[in-house]
């Protein structure tokens, strides 16, 4: 079942078009990787889906409903959770309250349980529930950011650069957590610069280069033929 569908999406930033009509489908229960070099248009796509960048045309639909151009809070209420680049958390607010803010979307009776279940999902941050989020390590902040995105049970999770700046041990900890999220039926769009993590997790891969889709293939195929991926990164440079 299609959870998120992007059709002919054009994105302009500062009046300049940076993404030129891309198509992308995220299936429920699967991880779709969006890969590409710096400046390929990956983060712009995330920001457009999240409603932060609104100078766009084309269509973005979630479960059949159009979400392009909606304000970020409306996008989130439509079931799309976004985890922004740089393990972004409410740094001067406690870990538990970071989760409580995200859980406000749930009915009142379910909020406390949602916070507790997210702390249980990441025991590494459970002991720091009362500490300001800014006092956590980078890896712990990334776990909190992921937990915050998941707290109100999204149907689609968009993750921008999950592994950026994190130690391999931390990334290894996040990988099974993300896999478990997808197994629960959540469609995941994973944006990564580092292909190894993405290919390990994803079912399908889309590669962007200079704002255009240069490759669409099953992840397994690219694991077996990495030269195809390398070629897709260079495609528009030729």
């Amino acid at each position, binding site marked *: 079942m299609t959870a998120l569908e992007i059709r002919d999406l054009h994105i302009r930033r500062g009046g300049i078009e940076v993404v030129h009509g891309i198509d992308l489908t995220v299936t429920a229960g699967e991880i779709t990787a969006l890969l590409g070099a710096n400046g390929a248009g990956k983060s712009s796509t995330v920001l457009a889906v999240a409603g*932060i960048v609104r100078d766009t045309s084309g269509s973005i639909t979630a479960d059949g409903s159009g979400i392009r151009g909606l*304000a970020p*809070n409306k996008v*989130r*209420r439509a079931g799309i959770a*976004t985890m922004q680049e740089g393990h972004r958390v*409410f*740094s001067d607010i406690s870990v538990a309250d970071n989760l409580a*803010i995200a859980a406000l979307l749930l009915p009142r009776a379910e909020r406390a349980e949602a916070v507790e279940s997210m702390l249980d999902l990441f025991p590494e941050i459970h002991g720091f529930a009362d500490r300001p989020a800014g006092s956590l390590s980078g890896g712990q902040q990334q776990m909190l950011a992921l937990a915050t995105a998941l707290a109100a049970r999204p149907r689609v999770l968009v993750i921008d650069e999950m592994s950026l700046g994190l130690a391999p041990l931390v990334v290894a900890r996040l990988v099974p957590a993300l896999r478990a999220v997808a197994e629960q039926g959540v469609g995941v769009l994973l944006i990564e610069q580092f292909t190894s993590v993405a290919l390990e997790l994803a079912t399908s891969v889309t590669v962007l280069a200079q704002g255009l889709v240069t490759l669409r293939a099953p992840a397994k195929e690219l694991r077996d033929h990495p030269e195809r991926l390398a070629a897709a990164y260079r495609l528009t440079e030729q």
Partner: protein
Amino acid sequence: MNLLPFVVAGLVIGSVYALSGVGVLVLYRTTGVLNFAHGAVGGMAALLVWQMVELRMQPPVAIALGVAAGAAIALLFGLVAGPFLARVDQLRKAIATLGLALALLGLMLFVWNDKARTIRLESSRISFDVAGARVNVTQLVCLGLALLVVVGTLLALRYTSTGTSMRALASDRELAAVVGTNVRLVENTAWAISGAVAGVSGILLADQTRLEPAFLTFLIIPELAAVVIGRFVSLWLTLVGGLAVGVGQSLVSAWPTVSAFSTAVPFVVATIVILVAARRRVVTVRVVRT
């Protein structure tokens, strides 16, 4: 000279500065707007109360409507200007509210002229002696209300959904929106609350001092001094700051030779706090580097 009456008067005025400062601070932290029109909104609410009482309305009803008018004026400005203010830097936001302050001041002068009036609340007619100083019930209300609003605001920020959302906006507006916070709704709530607080403050100041449009409009200066002393963060320090400014102003006005400088007290107190805070930060940095 018995300074106690001046200390009492200063504490009362200072508590209203603090009360007003809490309104300014909550709005600033939630929306990023430093509202220079806070005093003018209070002045408008107080003049409406005076007008309604003149028209033989029951004072409690008039006061309730005056507070509601303060909330409505601030909310209306938030609804109309909020979406534009969200896209501009803090200096432009502040200047936009200065425009509102001047517009409200002009409207007050146009409708009611610049004559000084008074609102005499019923509670101000009941008074008693405390160690030689005359204290009335309204003065006790001012002090109690400031404390109540600080405690109430802290509890609301901690335990209510709206308060939690306000903290989220104060911390990271974009992230708050991304996790689902209805930014416009929370901002509008902050405008309405801040306007209601301005209304209450304006009515109390009109009773304790005088009801004059320009005087009430420019009371934003000592109110802002309280917020500066609170470092734009702390509600408790804003309360302390308001009381310090009020008492300082009152004591300076007790001496005829320097009483003309009482209006400078907020600047002096705020400047001392900024300098001490900056000096402490430099010392801390040096210690860390050593």
